[in-house]
């Protein structure tokens, strides 16, 4: 459903995203992992039109969307959330979500009604009238998700929606995301919380220094030595293996 081919983007001399090729099949939950600064958020920004690639193409449902404007890409059916949450701080939770709902619905009452439904779906039903600025970090992450979901996307790009949540909250959100997928929304997510990655993903891509270094099921990639090294430093895989051998 989403095809990324040879996508690159540099900031000054830094290759933040370096010749990345990947695809996200319809109906799946695909995750993107990698150490800090690997270029994950930049890749999302390239897909969603917030940054223009230096080279490479992005296509969605067979249509080229490379370099299209963010609002056009959203209307085409791809919506992103922000790692650094971007609530409409002066508005209530209900109004925040309604902005998303308006993308498909002109009528104000219909949009408010739809926003209410979405809020219930992500477990924010009781917070509708609360000002967005009064939410906890967990609430704000949820609001990002709710607002995005209200635009009726076919592909949802989630950038670290679990960050800063406690174990219970992560468990709840994992269920919410699964339910969204079950209703037919394809999901591509960036996540550092490995527990969530393992439980959710059908497929995982690993990015390091802008380049894709591994792809496969979550189990496959997390046991690949070069992936472990990317996270823990050179020689780490060997040391881990030694440790395990020692314990055995």
């Amino acid at each position, binding site marked *: 459903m989403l095809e990324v081919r040879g996508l690159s983007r540099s900031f000054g001399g830094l290759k933040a995203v370096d010749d990345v090729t990947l695809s996200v099949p319809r109906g799946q939950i695909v995750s993107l992992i990698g150490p800090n600064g690997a270029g994950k958020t930049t890749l999302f920004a390239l897909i969603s039109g917030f940054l223009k690639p230096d080279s490479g193409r992005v296509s969605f449902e067979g249509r080229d969307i490379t370099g299209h404007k*963010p609002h056009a890409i*959203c209307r085409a059916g791809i919506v992103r959330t922000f790692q650094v949450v971007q609530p*409409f701080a002066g508005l209530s939770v209900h109004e925040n979500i309604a902005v998303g709902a308006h993308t498909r619905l002109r009528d104000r009452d219909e949009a408010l009604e739809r926003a209410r439904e979405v809020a219930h779906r992500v477990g924010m039903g009781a917070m509708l009238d609360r000002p967005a600025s009064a939410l906890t970090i967990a609430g704000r992450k949820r609001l990002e998700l709710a*607002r995005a979901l209200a635009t009726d996307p076919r592909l949802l790009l989630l950038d670290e929606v679990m960050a800063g949540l406690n174990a219970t909250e992560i468990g709840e959100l994992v269920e919410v995301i699964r339910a969204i997928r079950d209703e037919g929304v394809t999901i591509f997510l960036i996540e550092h919380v490995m527990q969530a990655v393992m439980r959710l993903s059908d497929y995982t891509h690993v990015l390091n220094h802008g380049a894709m270094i591994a792809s496969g099921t979550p189990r496959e990639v997390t046991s690949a030595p070069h992936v472990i090294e990317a996270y823990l430093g050179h020689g780490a895989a060997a040391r881990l293996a030694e440790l395990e051998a020692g314990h055995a």
Partner: protein
Amino acid sequence: MAGWLIIALALALAPLALGSGRWVEFLELTLFVAVLGQGWNVLGGYGGQYSFGNAVFFGTGAYVQALLQYRFGISPWISLWFAIAGTAAVGAAIGWLSFRYGLRGSYFALITLAFAEAFHVLARSFPSITEGGRGVQLALNQDPDRALATFQFNFAGSFLAENGFYYTILAVFLASAFATWRMERTRFGAQLIAVRENEDAAQALGIDAFRVKLGAISISAAITAAAGVYYVQKYLFIEPGIAFGTSKSVEALFAPIIGGLGTVVGPLLGSFFIHGVGEAAKATIGQALGDRPGVDLILFGTILILVLAFLPRGLAGLWAALWRRLTGGDGNA
């Protein structure tokens, strides 16, 4: 809503209750500045795009209204539509040039100021069209039977002569307040507010921020132009300084900032407060110091700073907070 009916009714009956004269004049000026403020509020208060040059819309509306009558003898009732629509188009053009290139914040403020100055110079520079610095003086109609046709109330019988323009600006104000009230409840209004709150998030959610801002600046221009139409019909005169000088731009932003940004009632509250304080100052400090120009400006500046520092949501916000305290309601339990 009930509040607005009371406000509208009170304002409509004011000339009957107060008799004509000083107090009605005071209200008329208050409403005039409230219209300028409402025009600014649509773009600045709801859209977060602070214009420093809304006089460009006031002046364009006024000049179109004056020149169509003066040069072509067109009925003021027809020319006013050209004034409003033409100014909306000018607003869209200025918006296109500013927003296309991503000007935000103080850059946008400066570019609008520059446009107002440019129009100021243009109005002076083409006397064959605009009569240059002398300004355009419309012919006074002295025939009572043609008072309505010429949109001039001076010889229309005593009640209209006294109050005709009060009701004109009241109608314009109520129309602008209603338009703003409606706008708040449409998709366009929600998207405009979203752009103000966070432009990136708005775009991620499918909002074409550029088009939304263009819409807002056009509405802003149209409302402000209506104030220009009123001005020309009342004074039968317009010149470049009045039309495009900074004073209209400043009044336009004072009223909603003091009254409450992004609220329907803010510009009216703010304008009422500014002029109330202005009158009171004239009666007290003015008397004490003698007639010194600028005293009121110092006062307004001080008020503006105090409001910005202590009442970020203006008088409307203060009112809402007081109301919550009085009624014990919570609103954000």
